[in-house]
C-alpha cells in the first residue's frame, strides 16, 4: 500500500510543478514527472510477488509471470510522452524566439 501512496505522491509532485512553476522548461519536466508516476502505477498494477518476467526462454521451465500487458501499454504511453515532450519543446523554442523569455508570466499576449 505504501508504494502506491508514494507513487501517487510522485503524481502530485508533477501536478504541483505544473501549477506553480513559471519556467516553460520546468513545466515540461513536471509533465514528464506526472507521466512517469502513471507509468510506474501501471507497472505496480502488473506486479505479482515472486513472479518472473513474461518472456519465454529456451530450456527454462514456465513459471509464474507478471502481467505483461501493462508493460506493453506503458511502452505505448512512453512513446506518446516522447512525442508530447518533443512537441512542447519545439513550441517552447518558438515561444522563446518570439518573446525572448521562458517566463510564463511574461508570455501573456492572450487574455483570459
Amino acid at each position: 500500500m505504501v508504494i502506491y501512496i508514494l507513487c501517487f505522491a510522485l503524481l502530485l509532485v508533477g501536478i504541483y510543478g505544473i501549477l506553480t512553476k513559471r519556467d516553460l522548461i520546468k513545466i515540461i519536466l513536471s509533465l514528464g514527472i506526472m507521466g512517469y508516476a502513471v507509468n510506474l502505477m501501471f507497472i505496480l498494477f502488473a506486479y505479482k510477488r515472486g513472479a518472473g518476467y513474461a518472456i519465454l526462454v529456451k530450456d527454462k521451465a514456465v513459471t509464474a509471470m507478471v502481467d505483461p500487458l501493462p508493460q506493453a501499454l506503458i511502452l505505448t504511453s512512453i512513446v506518446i510522452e516522447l512525442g508530447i515532450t518533443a512537441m512542447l519543446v519545439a513550441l517552447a523554442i518558438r515561444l522563446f524566439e518570439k518573446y525572448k523569455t521562458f517566463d510564463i508570466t511574461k508570455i501573456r499576449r492572450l487574455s483570459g
Partner: protein
Amino acid sequence: MILPFLIIIPLLAAFLITLISGGRDSWAIVFSILAVISLLALSVFSFLSTGSQTFIYEMSGWKIPLTICLVQDALSTFMLVIVNLIALTSLMFSVSYIRQYSAPWKYYALFMLLIAGMNGVIATGDIFNLFVFMEIALFSAYALVAFGGKAEEYEASFKYAVMGSVSSTLILLGIGILYSATSTLTMAKIAEILPTLDVKLTYWVGAIFLAGFGLKAAIIPFHAWLPDAHSSAPAPISAMLSGVFIKSLGVYVLIRLFFNVFGGVAVFNEVFLVIGAISMIIGVFLALGQWDIKRLLAYHSISQIGYIIIGIGLATNLGILGGVFHLFNHAIFKALLFYNAGVLEMTTGTRDLRQMGGLAKKLPTTSFTSMIASLSIAGLPPFNGFFSKLIIFIAAIQAGRPVYAFLAGLGSLLTLASFMKMQRYAFYGKENKDADKTLAKVSTAMKWAMISLAVLCLLTSLMVIPGIRELTLDPVVAVIMNKTGYIAEVLGR
C-alpha cells in the same frame, strides 16, 4: 468490415502526402479531398446500413477479450458522419484559405491525422486504443493550432498542449485503475465486470474520467484552453475543433463511458446537469463581452456544449434525443460561423468587430450564410437549432426540472443578443472608413462550403419529423439508453 477503412484511409493519405507530395501542394490537395470524400461516403453508407444493429470488427484475427475491437453501432456511425461531413467542408474551405501560410502540404498531412484520430476514437471499443487515437488527434490539433506561426498561436498551442496532456495523464491513470480492477481493456467487458465490483470504484474512476474528458469537451471548470486555441487556429481548423473535435473526444467519449460502460450512474447525471448549466450560462456571458469575433464564437462553443451536456444529463429518452440532435446541429452551424469568421478575417485583415461594418454588400454570401447560422445558433424557427433546443427545453420540463428549462431559455436569449451584436457590427451598421478597400477575393470553393452548410442548417431540422427521426436519431438514442445492450451486442451474447 467498413470501420477499419475509416481509420486506414486517412492514415494512409497522411503518409502518402508527406511521402509523395513533398513540396507540391496540388498532390496533397488531391489526396486529401479523395480521402475525405471516400470517408464521407463510407460513413454515410455505414450509418444507413447499420440501423439499430451492432457490428464488431476484431483486429488481427483474434477473438474479443484478447484483441482490439471496433464497434459499429448507431452512435458511432452517427458521430462518424458528423466528423467526416464537417471535415469535407473544412477541406473545401481550406484549399484557398490555407494558401496564405507556408508549406500547405504539412497542413493537409496533419489534417488527415486529425481525422484519423477522431475516427479512431469514435470507432474503437477498446479503452486503451481510445487513448492512443485520442493522442493522435490531440497531437495534430496542437500542431494545427500553432500552424499560423504567430506568437499568439504558439502561446495558445502551448497552453492547450500542457492542459491537454495533464488531462491525458489523468485519463491514463483512470484506465490503469480500471484495468487493475477488471483485468481487461475491452469496454464491453469492463461494463460487464464493473457492476460486480464495489460501486466506489465507479465513482473514483468516473470522477477521474470526468476531469480528463471534461477538459477535452471544454465544460466549464476545464474550459480555459478553448477560447485561446480555437480563436488562434486557422479558420477551417477552428471549425473542425469547435465543430467536431470537442464533441468526438469529449462528449462522445463521455456518453460512451458514462452510459454504455458505467451504466448511467445517477450521481454523474446530476453532475452533468450542474456543469452543463454552468457552462451554458457562464459561456454565453463570457461571449457577450467579446469583441474578437473568433473568441466570441469560441465562448459560444462552451455554452452550446453546455446544452448538449444538459440534454445528456437529463437521461430521459427525450433529453438524450435533444442532446444528440443538438450535437449534430451545433457541428453544422458552428463550423459555418467559423468559416464566416475566417472570410471576415481574410478580407478585412482583422478579427475585431469594431473595425468592421457594412460588409453585407461586399460579401453577400458570407453575410447571408452567417445570418442563417446566427439564427440557428440562437434557436429561431425554422432552423435546426430551434428544434434541438426546444426538445431539450421540453425534456427538462418533462423530467421535472424546470430550473434547467428556464436556464436553457435564458441562455438562448443571451445567445441571440450576442449574435445580433455580431451581425450589427460586422455586416450592417456604418461602413468603416479606415478599413482597407482592397478586399481579398472569396473563392468559389469557400462559398460552396458555406452555402452547403447553410442549406444543411435548414435541412437537418427535418430530422424532427417522426419518419426521418426513426431512421436517424432514434437508433442513436436507443444505443445510449440501452444499458445492457452494448455489453450483449459487443460480446455476442
